[in-house]
């Protein structure tokens, strides 16, 4: 009776360790996480470990619905004028689509 229990405990510990490592990596900067992903096979992160769940949790962020949206003034792709978020206050809602080509 002892051996199956020991093996189960070892597997559970290893799994918990894996999830811990993956979660810790996901909470790093995008650059660090990207580096991590060059070493760890994707199926391990997204298949073996509950990658999607861990990712959602790690990337929840500190901004919540109802909070004041952090202001910014960023350079536009077209034209030289900068776009300032707070300029829209009292005018119209703003949809922000964060992303990149790759």
């Amino acid at each position, binding site marked *: 009776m002892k051996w199956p229990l020991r093996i189960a405990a070892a597997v559970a510990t290893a799994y918990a360790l894996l999830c811990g490592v993956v979660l810790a990596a996901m909470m790093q900067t995008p650059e660090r996480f990207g580096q991590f992903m*060059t070493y760890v096979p994707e199926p391990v992160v997204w298949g073996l470990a509950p990658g*999607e769940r861990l990712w959602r949790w790690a990337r929840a962020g500190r901004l919540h*619905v109802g909070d004041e949206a*952090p202001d910014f003034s960023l350079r536009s*792709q077209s034209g030289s004028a900068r776009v300032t978020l707070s300029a829209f206050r009292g*005018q119209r*809602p703003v949809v922000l689509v*964060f*992303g990149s*080509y790759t």
Partner: protein
Amino acid sequence: MPALNRLYREYRDRVAFYVVYVQEAHPIDAWQMDVNVEDGVLVASTKTDDERFDAAGLCVTKLGIELPAVMDEVDDRVERAYTGWPDRLYVVGADGRVVYKSAAGPFGFRTSEVEASLKGLVSAAPQPRTSALASPRTSP
């Protein structure tokens, strides 16, 4: 992209839309993706304003994005404030407050949720002219 473009076309007269271009999700010098290699989507991580400007321009052109785009500073300050990497959707109300925040991308990138949020926000706004074939508005 088509869904986002469609949303943009429908609401642009009442809502401002911006792509906030952040650090590459799968740069060639780090976490490269096979599917990107196959598709010829090869971009190094952007470390200067000019590099990011060029990458954003490539993205907008190649993906046929109709929305205007702005680039995050190379220190990724806006991405950090919004936890926007690799992609994410937000709706900011006219009062300057976050009205909708998607779950972290790519899993949480749902245009339909943005549409639902906008429908609630602009319902009070004057309706654009509709064709005579549309059903008439009835009083509540």
